[in-house]
């Protein structure tokens, strides 16, 4: 039975674990940002930029953006296969689901590009 044509890893277990690991990465990154703002209530732009572009935060930020993409795709794929199924919608379900998935890919990819571009301060022309 082909039940998982387009999930992220084709394995329910791997998807399940990735979903959790990426959630932890996203949570830790959020904590770092909030922690920095709490520890430096009088933060100005110079210190903010210095913090965000420190090597550790750059790598961590990149990891976070990638985690976001994986997390969003697995989550949205799951939602799509819950609500847009043949069982509920009949023969047009695959088409509707394909359109939906295309849209999700587009949005996630855009976020990925913009996020990485901003983080690594690429000139706007690359975006």
């Amino acid at each position: 039975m082909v039940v998982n044509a387009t999930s992220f890893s084709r394995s329910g277990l791997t998807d399940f674990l990735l979903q959790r690991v990426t959630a932890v990465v996203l949570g830790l990154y959020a904590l770092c940002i909030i922690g920095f703002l709490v520890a430096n209530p009088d933060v100005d732009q110079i210190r903010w930029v210095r913090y965000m572009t420190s090597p550790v935060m750059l790598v961590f930020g990149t990891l976070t953006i990638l985690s976001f993409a994986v997390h969003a795709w697995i989550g949205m794929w799951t939602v799509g296969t819950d609500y847009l199924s043949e069982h509920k919608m009949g023969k047009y379900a695959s088409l509707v689901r394909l359109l939906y998935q295309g849209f999700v890919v587009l949005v996630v990819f855009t976020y990925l590009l913009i996020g990485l571009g901003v983080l690594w301060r690429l000139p706007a022309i690359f975006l």
Partner: protein
Amino acid sequence: MQVSIYRFIPDSDSEPRMQDYEYDLPDDRDLMVLEVLENLKAQDPSIGYRRSCREGVCGSDGMNINGQNGLACKTPVSEAVSRDRLVLRPLPGLPVIRDLIVDMSQFYRQYERVEPFLTNDNPRPAQERLQSQEDREKLDGLYECILCACCTTSCPSFWWNPDKFLGPAALLQSYRFLADSRDTATEERLSKLDDPFSVFRCRGVMNCVNACPKDLNPTRAINEIRTLLIKNGT
């Protein structure tokens, strides 16, 4: 009390309707929902429902009672009724054959998929395959399932993907054989569960635990399966 029953007779009805009956409850004792149905059927023999044991053993009278799945024979009217109204509908998420009778084929197909029988490829012992008391205790809370489908038909994930998500009842039985010390097919069983749907569509909503008339806990069994899959896969 007013009793409102979901009626659908495919030969004569073009669509389902709710039919209301007046019912006088006795003052001196509580009735089970099934007794009310039996008495109503004496007046109106066209009401269709399944029942057999009338004591929570056969699992045939699972239905939706005032919004909650349960066995009619084990649900006291006093607990179910709200604002003097008893509302009986068929189990949700399965095709209705007639009135309160649903087609359980999909439910059984998922049950079949978990191969609910002991598999052991060791040579047959002279008498029987023994099991320690501790190992036997691991099956408590699993083997008691009567396949009434109250859990599976209350599970939103099963409503959405009844053909792909096994559902709590089948998963409980899956774990019943994974946990059995006499079963040697653990690996093969696990390898059939590692797709994104069969097990992993469970979201831990716990509707199933709420619905089970035998007080079993399919969510816990599902979590155990997940733990086994993680141990096996890493």
